[in-house]
């Protein structure tokens, strides 16, 4: 790790990197030509609909599809019996360990249904209306069981058990008693009891957060066609075409080469369309094979809420001790996360997540975190942008803020006194690489927002610091050079945040040509090498490196072609900013396009290839500042001003980085003030729609000001760091700290609705 962070990126006068070109996919999206998951229509296409459980927890006694089978307009009906029985095999296929039996059961229930909306069967018919009517004719006999939807209640003895034989998995002694606690992890650093003994002030509180959904406006949708050539083609909205294809190969017991997944445009995903649990595609494929016709399956908004993959609600305790001078001596936390119907909440990940990143912004000598993954009768959870960390940040940054108040210190100054730096050890044994935690806090402290005093009754300013570790993983990119000097770039990364453009910009920088000479597109599983899903804030970093590698490969080959043309040795040809030069007896020069024009005479096509799995990516910090006004009579919160300060490494395309900062912040604001799954006592969700599951509307938020701090990220030629996920981490805590300063009371449960604020103020 170099000492002087600023010099990592080397030259800083780039031609393309750092500019704001228009987005490749914008014209099609603006004119309605862009094709999303539900926009693929094929001749003879049928419409598929799932038959879903009305019960949160029940055993399936029988499924009778006879009446549906012979309903006019129905062409196929499938249940779990149509899929090979999955033994307990484990699929560490791509980025997460998933037990394949769970994958099968979640797709189509076998013995038990574990949440309202759990699929039990599916029908394919001539229209979506006929399919809906036919789905009602599939008769399912259930033995209803008691349900549990609260994470604490699920851990109490005698709670209904979702998986009768499941024992808590942990590195400690194996437990003998079945339990809803799927796993327990413990991270320890130093000696917490000694640390707390040294503290002058200790704050400990309990916190809860609700189950929340990624809320993408596009429901899940796909079209599948199992042709008579035994090839399955699937058009679907997914974050990862390859992960989808590999899971389909296993679920359908069908060779990967006979499955082609074509990723459509994605109408928002945020971790909710990662190919971990497969909702529609395998069932649509099987319906298509049975009916021998293409089948389109779409979800209603209610199905998206009830039966896809929200992110974990949590019950948490946090305790932090600090000396009178403001030095944190110890931190401790207990985290109980909802896994949903099947184990796998994001309490820990290969590099951190909830437990690992909770106190990552700080240098804490002694700490312990116990985290529990708890199954409940709700849909299985998935990532929602920096999975697990927004939940864990909510307690951490409120307790830290309360300590600053106790010590009478400015909240940013107190955080700077304990800020983590390169080499600081986390409470999990790993240590920070090159990070910008300090730079971000200082930029926030000197920002226009923080320097403008806020006054007036029931007004408050809150601050919170957040961290996400980002990710690398496997990416593929090819660059083919055309005779006119333009190039066609294909990468395997689905484009969620403008990465078709940011990846091409990095290639253009290497090739020394302008961006409009590059056609950048997203490949399907037949046209590019294996590429991990777009997620983990990895794409501009890892697929960027793949593009840079491919571009360098192109230049190497073109140097050979120029040498051949000039009759010199390869090594005599140099390349800089798009110009090939040789000094053999007088200067020889050709620009990129000229060499491209000679390819047919010097050996044919030139295609550069970049298949990479880059390591050593850098994590990112964000400091958010929120000014709020609370109406003391109704408890309603208005956001007066909101600023996101974030270490962005090197902003390849500043507008898209701002877009990630603003979009992540407003998602965090919704998480903090408005959003949450609500349940009745039978375990039914009572707000599965955009009317009562309230995501922020335009008048709910002000302009989101952005301050980009560029501390170059390690192991990337231009210093790129992931930027997509950290902005969702701080908002709930920043708002809670602001509300506390406005009304003098801490609100420790999410969402911080007007009713909850009135209760905290003792008004109702």
């Amino acid at each position, binding site marked *: 790790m170099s000492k002087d962070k600023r010099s990592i990126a080397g030259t800083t006068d780039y031609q393309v990197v750092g500019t704001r070109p228009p987005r490749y996919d914008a014209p099609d999206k603006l004119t309605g030509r862009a094709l999303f998951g539900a926009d693929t229509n094929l001749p003879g296409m049928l419409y598929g609909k799932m038959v879903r459980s009305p019960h949160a927890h029940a055993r399936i006694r029988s499924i009778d599809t006879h009446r549906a089978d012979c309903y006019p307009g129905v062409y196929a009906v499938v249940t779990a019996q149509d899929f090979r029985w999955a033994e307990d095999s484990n699929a*560490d296929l791509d980025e997460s*360990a998933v037990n394949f039996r769970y994958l099968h059961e979640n797709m189509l229930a076998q013995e038990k249904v574990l949440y309202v909306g759990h699929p039990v069967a599916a029908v394919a018919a001539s229209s979506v209306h006929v399919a809906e009517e036919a789905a009602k004719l599939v008769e399912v006999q259930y033995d209803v069981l008691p349900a549990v939807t609260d994470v604490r209640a699920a851990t109490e003895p005698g709670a209904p058990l979702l998986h009768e034989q499941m024992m808590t998995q942990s590195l400690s002694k194996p437990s003998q008693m079945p339990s809803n606690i799927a796993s327990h992890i413990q991270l320890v650093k130093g000696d917490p009891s000694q640390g707390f003994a040294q503290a002058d002030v200790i704050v400990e509180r309990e916190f809860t957060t609700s189950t929340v959904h990624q809320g993408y406006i596009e429901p899940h949708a796909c079209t599948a066609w199992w042709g008579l050539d035994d090839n399955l083609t699937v058009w679907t909205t997914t974050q990862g075409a390859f992960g989808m294809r590999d899971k389909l190969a296993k679920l359908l017991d069908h060779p990967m080469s006979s499955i082609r997944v074509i990723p459509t445009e994605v109408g928002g995903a945020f971790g909710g369309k990662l190919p*971990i649990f497969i909702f529609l595609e395998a069932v649509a494929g099987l319906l298509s094979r049975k009916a021998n016709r293409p089948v389109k399956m779409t979800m209603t908004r209610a199905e998206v809420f009830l039966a896809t993959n929200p992110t974990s609600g949590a019950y948490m305790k946090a305790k932090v001790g600090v000396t009178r001078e403001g030095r944190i001596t110890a931190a401790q936390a207990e985290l109980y996360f909802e896994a949903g119907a099947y184990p796998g909440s994001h309490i820990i990940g290969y590099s951190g997540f909830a437990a690992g990143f909770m106190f990552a912004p700080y240098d804490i000598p002694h700490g312990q975190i116990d985290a529990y993954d708890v199954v409940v009768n709700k849909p299985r959870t998935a990532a929602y942008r920096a999975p697990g960390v927004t939940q864990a940040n909510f307690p951490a940054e409120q307790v830290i803020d309360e300590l600053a108040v106790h010590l009478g210190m400015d909240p940013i100054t107190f955080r700077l006194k304990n800020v983590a730096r390169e080499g600081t050890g986390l409470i999990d044994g790993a240590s920070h690489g090159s990070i910008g935690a300090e730079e971000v806090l200082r930029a926030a402290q000197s920002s226009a927002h923080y320097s403008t005093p806020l006054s007036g009754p029931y007004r408050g300013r809150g601050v919170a610091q957040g961290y996400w570790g980002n990710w690398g993983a496997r990416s593929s990119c090819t660059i083919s050079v055309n005779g006119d000097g333009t190039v066609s770039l294909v990468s395997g990364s689905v484009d969620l945040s403008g990465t078709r453009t940011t990846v091409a910009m990095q290639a253009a920088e290497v090739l020394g040509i302008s961006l409009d000479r590059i056609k950048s597109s997203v490949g399907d599983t037949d046209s590019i090498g294996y590429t991990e899903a777009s997620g*983990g804030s990895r794409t501009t970093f890892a697929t960027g490196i793949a593009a840079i590698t491919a571009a360098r490969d192109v230049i190497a080959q073109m140097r050979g072609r120029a040498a051949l043309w000039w009759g010199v040795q390869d090594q005599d040809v140099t390349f800089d900013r798009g110009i090939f030069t040789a000094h053999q007896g007088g200067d020889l020069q050709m620009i990129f396009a000229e060499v491209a024009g000679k390819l047919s005479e010097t050996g044919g096509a030139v295609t550069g290839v970049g298949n990479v799995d880059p390591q050593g990516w850098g994590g990112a910090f964000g400091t958010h500042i929120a000014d709020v006004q609370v109406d003391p009579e109704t408890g309603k919160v208005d956001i007066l001003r909101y600023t996101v300060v974030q270490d962005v490494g090197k902003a390849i395309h500043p507008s898209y980085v701002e877009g990630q900062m603003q979009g992540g912040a407003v998602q965090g604001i919704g998480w903090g003030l408005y959003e949450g799954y609500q349940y009745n006592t039978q375990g039914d969700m009572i707000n599965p729609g955009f009317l009562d599951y309230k995501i922020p509307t335009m008048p709910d938020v002000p302009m989101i000001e952005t301050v980009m701090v560029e501390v170059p990220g390690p192991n990337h030629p231009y210093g790129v760091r992931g930027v997509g996920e950290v902005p969702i981490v701080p908002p709930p805590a920043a708002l809670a700290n602001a509300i506390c300063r406005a009304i003098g009371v801490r609100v420790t449960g999410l969402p911080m609705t007007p009713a909850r604020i009135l209760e905290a103020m003792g008004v109702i």
Partner: protein
Amino acid sequence: MAAVWISSLMRDLTAGQDRVRVSGATVAEVIDGLEAIHPGVKERLLVKGQLAPGIMVSVDDKRALRGLQEQVGGESDVRFLPLMAGG
């Protein structure tokens, strides 16, 4: 001799030690070495001879893509972590 980081939950087997030096050229050999000194470790880390589901191993802060077959250097730092990624 590679240095193995012992997760806090396994320190009941290593009498509270958080770091144990073991010789071995691959992760599998390191685990056998650990088992010899502190019996019971193997049962916690392996299921049917493979890494337990949801457990992964990192060597010198990099994820060991070859798992049990991953080479381990003389001064390597070996760590067993729960696995979950993506976001």
